[in-house]
């Protein structure tokens, strides 16, 4: 049965704009709706979309939404899903940016803003840690050496991040480590 575009957009609208916690929360809600509750996708289709989203540049959850919706309604479905997931939450992000920015005039508000920004620093360190964690479980000389070299080069010699990422990809392709499945 062909999935109705409006119903499809409604599911993505709810998943993308009523969940806090980023991609994991959205993925969990979509799995329940698309695979288990509505049966619009099989588990295999869902798994393939998740794998491909991980190797697509950019925000993985948007690629995941585009992919699952494309499986159901091709190009039109992909556009509808990405719009539904991202437009309302982007509007909320702009409103929050305006609110945080306007706080800069008050000394007390500056302290509150400083505390919130400190939480963001912790968030970014956590993001780096969570990216690294799977590699640390299966340590190899290559990964450890590569990471140290990258941190050193980026910190002290100001090599462009793009160059470092490209270099790492080439090393990884030419020298797949034993932990690679």
């Amino acid at each position: 049965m062909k999935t109705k575009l409006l119903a499809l957009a409604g599911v993505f609208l709810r998943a993308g704009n009523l969940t806090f916690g980023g991609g994991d929360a959205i993925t969990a809600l979509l799995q329940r709706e698309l695979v288990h509750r509505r049966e619009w996708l099989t588990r295999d289709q869902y798994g393939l979309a998740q794998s491909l989203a991980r190797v697509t540049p950019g925000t993985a959850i948007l690629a995941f939404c585009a992919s699952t919706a494309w499986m159901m309604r091709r190009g039109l479905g992909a556009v509808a899903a990405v719009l539904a997931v991202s437009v309302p939450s982007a509007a909320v992000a702009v409103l929050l940016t305006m609110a945080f920015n306007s706080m800069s005039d008050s000394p007390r508000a500056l302290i509150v803003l400083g505390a919130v920004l400190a939480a963001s620093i912790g968030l970014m360190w956590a993001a780096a840690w969570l990216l690294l964690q799977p590699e640390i479980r299966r340590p190899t000389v290559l990964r450890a050496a590569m990471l140290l070299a990258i941190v050193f080069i980026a910190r002290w010699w100001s090599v462009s991040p793009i160059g470092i990422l490209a270099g790492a990809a080439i090393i990884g392709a030419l020298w797949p480590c034993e932990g690679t499945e």
Partner: protein
Amino acid sequence: MKLLVLYLLLLKATATSFGGLSSIPVLREDLVVRQRFLTDRELNLAVTAGRTGPGPNGLYVVSVGYLVAGLPGACLGWLAMVTPAFLIIPLARFVGARANLPRIRGAIRASTVASAGLLAVTTLRLAQGALTDSIFVGIAAASFALFSFTKIDSLWVILASALIGFLSAMISAC
């Protein structure tokens, strides 16, 4: 012209990274260090705004666009955020079957390690300007622990940090 440059720089950051926040190093290099469209504090504020509301982690790119060029900039930020997502369609058709090849997986995993290293270095630089008080250092450390080792929603951590900041401001005013 500035809008076109802004879009291309935002797209460059989103299209060359894997994962919502991993585009921060490229974005900082272009918008803060080279073009000076943005300060470190504004970049940090954009990340906060992007993570406080609902939706994808990459939303901070929309906030960055807004801080650089107002609402047109926010629209371009949104466009730069969603554009790479559509790359998955040709990927699903042609490349999906090759994603498990050792060399492809090796390249992806090495890029991910590099992204983590770059993100750590960039965050250290942002921290130099943001963590100016022992309370802020404590909040950053607690926030790192909560985000790394628990499933707590980011909204609660940010609201708790705001409450601690508010109490601190009230105490210092007395």
